[in-house]
């Protein structure tokens, strides 16, 4: 019996959301009195032993360049083989785009109940029950898993990374690797940008900014804070900003430490995707804007007057000229 954490990598580095999953898996393993282990799929570059600091005792590497592209079908088979060989009873994924592709398939293959979008450690005393996000951030459900093997996909930014002393043993796992039926003809990875779902701080703009030419007010602040940028749906629809920045009920759901909303009204569909943010700041000239009801801090004012002053103050705080 063990808890097995899938470690998603980006250019040889384990993603932050997977380090959260590792910390979550380690805490769960401790609760269950079993060891926590990790697995990487595809070429590994960095020093995996150091992942012991997140509580993982052993890292299995399925180290093969044939697995560098994500094919859910091929990944599922190798992960199922590993899980069966090691006797894993709980598998933990980050509920990122990789987790969304692989965990459901694996659930079927291992006959393991899946809770996707978990936000807290399971209740394990009676029935194994996991709290997850439902109604696009407007509520939570406590979902019981009734199968012997269980899979949990943890929402990014829902569980803090815990690091201690420790070195993990790294072992290679020789899995049977199927030929992929999906040919990847091109890959276009965004480099140097903070991924929206993993970002601690998100600066977001709405139609109140009047046009793409004014987006410097968003991007300048974001850069100073090391933040990701987001936008409301109409802003993406009229192509002021790229679609992948659209947050909300029909866009991306995020839960950063700080969500900074500039010129966004706070429609219910927008709030659904951002209301799990720990701190919400709203700048809007309309005191009746619904966003103020969901905010922690706010300024009722014109973004074109307020934002330059905020940017200057943050520059001063960060010691930037």
């Amino acid at each position: 019996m063990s808890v097995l954490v899938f470690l998603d990598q980006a250019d040889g580095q384990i993603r932050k959301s997977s380090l959260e999953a590792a910390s979550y898996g380690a805490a769960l393993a401790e609760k269950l009195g079993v060891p926590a282990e990790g697995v990487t799929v595809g070429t590994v570059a960095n020093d995996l032993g150091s992942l012991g600091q997140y509580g993982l005792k052993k890292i299995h590497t399925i180290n093969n360049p044939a697995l560098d592209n994500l094919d859910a079908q091929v990944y599922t088979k190798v992960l199922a083989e590993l899980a069966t060989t090691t006797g894993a009873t709980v598998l933990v994924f980050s509920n990122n785009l990789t987790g969304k592709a692989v965990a459901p398939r694996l659930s079927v293959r291992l006959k393991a109940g899946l809770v996707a979008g978990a936000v807290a450690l399971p209740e394990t005393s009676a029935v194994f029950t996991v709290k997850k996000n439902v109604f696009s951030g407007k509520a939570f459900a406590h979902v019981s898993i009734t199968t012997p093997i269980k899979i949990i996909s943890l929402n990014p930014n829902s569980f803090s990374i815990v690091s201690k002393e420790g070195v993990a043993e790294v072992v290679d796992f020789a899995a049977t690797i199927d030929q992929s039926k999906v040919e990847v003809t091109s890959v276009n990875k965004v480099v140097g940008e903070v991924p929206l779902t993993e970002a601690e701080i998100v600066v977001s703009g709405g139609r109140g900014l009047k046009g793409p030419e004014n987006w410097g007010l968003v991007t300048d602040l974001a850069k100073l804070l090391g933040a990701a940028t987001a936008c409301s749906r109409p802003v993406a629809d009229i192509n002021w900003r790229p679609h992948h920045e659209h947050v909300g009920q029909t866009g991306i759901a995020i839960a950063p430490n700080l969500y900074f909303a500039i010129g966004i009204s706070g429609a219910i569909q927008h709030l659904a995707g951002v209301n799990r943010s720990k701190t919400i700041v709203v700048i809007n000239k309309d005191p009746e804007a619904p966003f103020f009801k969901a905010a922690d801090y706010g300024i009722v004012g014109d973004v074109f007057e307020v934002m330059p002053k905020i940017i200057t103050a943050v520059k001063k705080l960060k010691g930037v000229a």
Partner: protein
Amino acid sequence: MKILVCISKTPDTTAKIAFTDNNTKFASDGVQWIINPYDEWYALVRAIELKESDPTTVIHLVTVGQADTDPIIRKALALGGDEAIRVNADSHDSFFIASQIAEIAKQGNYDLVFTGKETIDYNGSSIGGMVAELLDLPYVSLAIKFALDGTTATIEREIEGGEETNKVQLPLVVSCQKGMAEQRIPNMKGIMGARSKPLKVVEPTPVEAYTSIASFELPPAKAGVRLIPADNPEELVRILHEEARVI
């Protein structure tokens, strides 16, 4: 060419979310129901476009739900599609639902199964992957563009940290999101035509659910906003740094 499009019924995006029966049931009284936006705007409309470019294409819709799902399926048929199948069951377990869809998919021998990327109520994003595994077919998740040349699909999809282009032979399962197509409004002809399209009701195949919902919970209400005067935005920066410690 035969396409199966999975349709789910969800509360309207403005619906008030509340629970009854000791927080074990969604309070559906007075709730407006819609087609799950991802199923409608992207999966269904892209399938309709494929039929428009190749009229020999047949589109079937499938939903797992009780009789109160019929208006939603009719609405979907008003947009397009040749016939619909409703599996007469009420379940929130992804594996149960996926098993029903896979059963229909096996019987119908489809070249393509389209789902939305997730439902806006239970947010599982699991049905597509599960159906693919049950059918032992390739699965391309989170597609943003889909083109077909004979039996070869070229798909752009979102992956963690970027996008990639895939080439895959049919049959396969695809989950669809923004970019695949543009939302459409059903016209009068579509609405009238939908009434006479076949809607077949079948009983579920017996499948053991893997999960069940024990209870629901609403997030705690916010304490209330602290307003900072517009002529002193520097104070906001100070508070965020010194008190909230978020910057």
